[in-house]
């Protein structure tokens, strides 16, 4: 009889652990599809383009992020390939001069200031160091948004426990500080929180 009673705390522990490690992340994140599919691989492999060809810096050195429709239209004014996504892009966005409402995996909170120029141009850090194999993927991953904060899951990283992550995963302050510490860079509060 007492042996069965031992199972109650064990079952409780199992339920608690399952709730924390499995159920919670499943509930915390909401999956959203990108408005269009986009193949980085076609552009980087077949097209032979570099990241900076589209994700460039403007005249005053500011990183412009995702290219505008007008930039894309310099090549895609008309449909070049055969994919349905490209056709939709040209019809719905290029010809109507609308911006694609991309969901940005790496968008930082408003109170964090991240200058690409200091890291890429001056620091010489490769894009893959923070964005991983994003530039070689054939499709866009589903965008997972944190229901509480409203930010992308990529900020925290794929693992809810932040264990076993790839070096490029995670864009939390801890990740920034760790890299700055490893490379012996300055890490004052006002560097990132203006």
């Amino acid at each position, binding site marked *: *009889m007492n042996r*069965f*009673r031992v199972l*109650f*705390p*064990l*079952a*409780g*522990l*199992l*339920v*608690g*652990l*399952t*709730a*924390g*490690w499995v159920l*919670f*992340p499943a509930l*915390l994140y909401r999956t959203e599809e990108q408005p269009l599919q986009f193949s980085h691989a076609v552009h980087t492999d077949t097209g032979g383009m570099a990241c900076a060809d589209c994700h460039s810096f*403007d005249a005053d050195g*500011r990183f412009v992020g995702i290219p505008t429709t007008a930039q894309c239209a310099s090549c895609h004014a008309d449909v070049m390939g055969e994919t349905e996504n490209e056709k939709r892009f040209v019809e719905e966005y290029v010809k109507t001069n609308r911006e694609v409402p991309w969901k940005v995996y790496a968008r930082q*909170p*408003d*109170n964090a200031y991240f200058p690409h120029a200091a890291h890429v141009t001056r620091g010489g850090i490769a894009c893959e160091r923070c964005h991983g194999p994003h530039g070689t993927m054939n499709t866009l991953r589903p965008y997972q948004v*944190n229901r*509480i*904060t*409203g*930010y992308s899951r990529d900020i*925290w990283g794929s693992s*809810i*426990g*932040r264990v076993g992550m790839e070096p490029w995963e995670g864009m939390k302050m801890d990740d920034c500080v760790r890299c700055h510490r490893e490379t012996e860079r300055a890490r004052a509060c006002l560097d990132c929180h203006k």
Partner: protein
Amino acid sequence: MPLTRRDILRFAGAATAGIVFSPLPWKMLDDVAIWTQTGPWIPKVPRGPISHVPSICSVCPAGCPVTARCVAGVPSSLRAASGSGQPLCPIGLTGHHLAYHPLRVAGPCLVEHRGEKVLTTSLSLDEALRRLPSVDGDRSVMIVDQRPGRAISDRYRAFVRQHPGSFYAVPDDDASMRTVGYDLERAHTILAVSTPLLDGWTTPARTARLIERRSKNDGLRILAADAARSRTATLADRWMPIRPGSEAALLVALLHLAHAHRQPDMTPSMRAIIERTTPERVAAAIGVTPVQLRHVYEKLTERGPSLVVVGGDGSNSVDAETDRLAFQLNRALGAASNGAIRQRPAIPVSEGLRERDLAVATPLSSVPDASVALVIIDGDEGTCHLSWESIVRTLHPGASIVVSLSPVLTALASHADLIIPSPAPFESFGEATGDGTDIACRYGVSRPLHPRRPGSVDPELVLGHLSGQVIEHEAALRDKVAGIWASRRGQIRTPDGSTTNLTSVEGAGSLWTALSEGAVWTLEGAPASASVRALESDASATDRLAARLSELAAGGATSTIAVVPTTWAPVTSCSRLSPLMTKLYQESGLRPTSEVAAVAPATAHACGVEDGAVAELRAGEQSSKVKVRVSDSLAPGMVQLSAGPDPVGFRSPEPPAVANALPRGRAAELRKS
């Protein structure tokens, strides 16, 4: 096996332990912390294309050229225009924050006082306008213009002219400051009498030039006569500590040394005062020695052009008599003839209006008591000193109504009966009419950068309701610009630093385009001799001066402590300062508010108060709780604190604290609370 309560508790306890050993609580802490920074109540930073918009800063009349960095069309920062070579002050740098000021008034509202609380009740615009009484022969109106010289000012003046018995009133210090400007760049010796010459008195550009000249050691000599060792006194070549309230005596003594009483155009009574006010007679009352007075005079005459500047920064200006004395002394030092002081020209009136059809500005103190039924207070008290007492005494004892057009709930607006808020800076076209200390008059137009908040109303609409002649705000400004263009005088300076004579501008439309893209129209003043008549003291002023000098010489107040009001307009009136800067100033102590009283160590010891202690400052019937800050920048027997209409700003509006009612040198007591 029956399920017991203990089993359930074991299960729940173990489940809780399991959760603790999972990321759930720690991740929740992290996410909730971020959520508090991203909730719907937090303004979101816009994202989008970046543009740089040339404009001017219209937060104060100086009109410094700025470049607004806009993200998705919303200004994110202001900086000095690169071609202007002028720095920006902290007010201008954060001017785009003012549209988000926590004291913004959302729309027309009635104001009601319940105890110390101020309650506002929203009204529709139609309802608010219906509450304005009609202006006729029996009901006179007083329009208080806190920023004279603008397009709407011309309309106000025309309206008042058409309604006899009404007044177009301006703050007293404003009327006097706008008569004569100082050519600081020309001067080699400057005596700043209780004036923060290097600390916000004039525009940042002129201050920067003075400091640059000092650093280059090009012969500029600055003398400071101030009761406290102010920032200006610290940077000056010589600081002469004087008793607060003795500025007039100091100037008369210097006039005596300049033999001004021998000038032929001096009135006999003034000549008599100057002749008998020898340094020996008043030195003790001023708090200096006769030798020091003679030394200062020698320095003034040693290397000219020399200038004597008086007056605070708009919130703490000296009285009109002292201002006139300074003018007389400048004239005696030759500043009028060598161009160091000049008469500031007036900005031409709007097209379609004639100067002779406009009412003359009346200093607020000259408006008779109990004479008006409707008071319209234009703007907020951000750049001048206007107390509620100076308004309320003019109200007719019967049915009278005070309407504030302030975009924020300032101290003055909180006393009004009705608020019809005007747009905040950079929400509509703004105007800058030039720094009152400058020798030139200026006119500039700032472009709207923010989307306009619903509920704000252009003053032109309120005036149009009273006069029956409605004009759009932008149309009124275009008329003003057309009036300037028609004068064919002056020149425009574009943001890149180039200048063009107005005669070369093709038409009023071209001038409007240039001004709305950041150019500023400038017209330099004429030699000041022409304005001598306007500044000469009349008989009553001379009598008041004589009485003051006698009182000072007799020992003045019997109290042990004299108040030294110090102020910097944005601190005394929060409406023109970003809350960010208010917080910075208050927490750092860089610009103490009226809640902080600075006293000398000896005075603190004598009064039994310590640094940081809360004490009661009493002057006559009024008293105020202050936090004591012991400072050796003050001479014993003085207490220094900020003065102004609303020194703290974020407190609930209440009757003015003791500091607001204290003239310079007022006797007071300080004791432990």
